[in-house]
């Protein structure tokens, strides 16, 4: 029995007074082992957020079942941390307050001092210590996103559900946080489901990449196992033939299921090796 199992899950939204049904997900089957890192890529509007919400327990499937350790998922639980796509920070709490609320809930038996330390540790992790007392309205989109990441990571859940957690960040910050996510995953071996619109990000971090086909009635595409050895260095990856091959395969698949590529970040496939335009190793920045 897998850690997380989705069996024939279907979900549609009923919208408006007319009650028109919009089928979003159809017959989704997915098995995730404990400690696995899964990346799901898909076009905008295909139902990725819906899928994450189902696993989080914020939505319930119309058909099929979602099992976590064999138990059906009916509501959110402390074992699943979520980074929402739209950050969903509490506007009346500071950066500290937002993270601290989650820490306090996740570790009720801790001393205030310990909770405080945990909070600061994760705010520091996402490089927001200078903004610790700021309120969400005073933060840029990327900073808000980093608070959301810190909030989810600080709760130390067994499973992380990340809905495009780095999409609003510049390439450099994105690279740093990718490294942090990988480090945390290496250390704690959490089960991670990462929604991303960046194939490179998926290849860098995930054990498997699973495309979500365009909706309506989206189904999961064939999975692409990423067997590249870890730790993966993004500079070396750029020269790696296997990396190039798997990336081309995934992009080809995505182009096939939908002719045009609107809303999707397809990496420019130009002379990457000499220029390294997309990534600067975060290590070289730390100096």
């Amino acid at each position: 029995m897998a850690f997380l199992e989705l069996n024939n899950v279907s979900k549609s939204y009923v919208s408006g007074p007319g009650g028109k049904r919009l089928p979003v997900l159809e017959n989704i089957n997915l098995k995730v082992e404990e400690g696995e890192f899964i990346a799901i890529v898909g076009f905008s509007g295909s139902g990725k957020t819906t899928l994450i919400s189902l696993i989080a327990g914020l939505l319930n499937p119309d058909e099929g079942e979602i099992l976590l350790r064999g138990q059906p998922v009916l509501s959110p639980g402390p074992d699943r941390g979520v980074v929402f796509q739209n950050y969903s920070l509490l506007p009346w709490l500071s950066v500290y307050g937002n993270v601290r609320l989650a820490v306090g809930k996740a570790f009720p038996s801790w001393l205030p001092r310990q909770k405080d330390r945990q909070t600061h540790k994760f705010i520091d992790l996402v490089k927001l210590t200078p903004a610790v007392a700021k309120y969400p309205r005073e933060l840029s989109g990327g900073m808000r996103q980093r608070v959301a990441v810190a909030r989810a990571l600080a709760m130390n859940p067994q499973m992380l559900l990340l809905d495009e957690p780095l999409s609003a960040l510049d390439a450099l910050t994105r690279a740093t946080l990718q490294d942090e996510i990988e480090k945390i995953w290496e250390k704690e071996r959490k089960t991670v489901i990462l929604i991303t619109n960046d194939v490179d990000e998926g290849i860098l971090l995930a054990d498997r990449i699973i495309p979500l086909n365009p909706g309506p009635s989206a189904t999961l595409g064939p999975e692409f196992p990423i067997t590249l050895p870890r730790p993966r260095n993004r500079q070396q990856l750029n020269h790696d033939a296997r990396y190039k091959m798997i990336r081309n395969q995934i992009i080809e698949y995505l182009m096939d299921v939908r002719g045009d590529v609107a809303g999707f970040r397809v990496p420019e496939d130009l002379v990457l090796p000499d220029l390294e335009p997309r990534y600067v190793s975060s290590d070289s920045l730390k100096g």
Partner: protein
Amino acid sequence: MSDRMIKNKKGQVSLGATAFPPNGLSLKAGDILLKLWVSLGIPVAAFSIFIWLWSAGAASVQTSLGTLPGPQAVFAQAGTLWQEHWEEKGKEKEFYFKQREQNAQKLAQDPAYQVKARKYTGKPTYLDQIITSLITVFTGFVIASLVAIPIGILCGLNRIIMIAFNPFIQIFKPVSPLAWLPLVTMIVSAVYTTQNGGIEKCFIISAITVSLCSLWPTLINTAQGVSSIDKDIINVSRVLNLGWFTHVFKIVLPSSLPLIFTGLRISLGVGWMVLIASEMLAQNPGLGKFVWDEFQNGSSNSLARIMVAVLTIGVLGFILDRLMVLLQKTVNFQK
């Protein structure tokens, strides 16, 4: 580290840009003058015209209490009321001083003498009445808030409670204080029988009437605020697995605070308006009773004094509203 690099870049760009507008300063000075005129000059001008029309028109209105007083008479009465207050305070001081002296004398003659301390029973002055009114409206407002906010939260959280409360809200909201007052009077008289307790019955009646009329805006706004919390924020609460109390106090209450305060502001305004009427009828020694007594007295100064009261009520209502706006601003976390 990466942050700093980008900030530096941005900083350079914006530095270059600020060097461009050359004559921004003179433009700004003109702007300020225009704004000052609009926000200060126009109201002052309008007020002057109003005063002029009033003094010109008042003389031509004959009432049973003489001609309608103009601004000067009203201003003079305001001065008189102010003077009366200090005269009364002087008398009070004198009374207590004499009482203390008498007691000391008697105690010197007869060591077994039981010291008597009588309270001064002078007429409440205009300032006393203002303070009574403010305390009454504040008491009524606090009672109303303590009732309305919790019920509003429950209504906003639960559709069934909302549906259950809705008919009451709709029916009782438009009821005038004049209709409530006899009922409240009878009930308070029946329930509150300890007459020698500190609180006056007329004060309780006025305060409760104020509550009954002013709790509805807070209740409705609170319910509205609670039921319209952003779905994303509800999702955060669910994902964090917050318990009911944490959910209510850390999520629901703060996020509906702006609307709750909007309701409180309206409530205080309604309460202040209703207060005068209920004080008149309940004979609570505040501004309402002042107006009523002057009306009954029918002296030649009465109309001017009533006008002083009208202006006082208006100005105090305005100040209360401004205070609520200030409070409202402190809780508004949105832009």
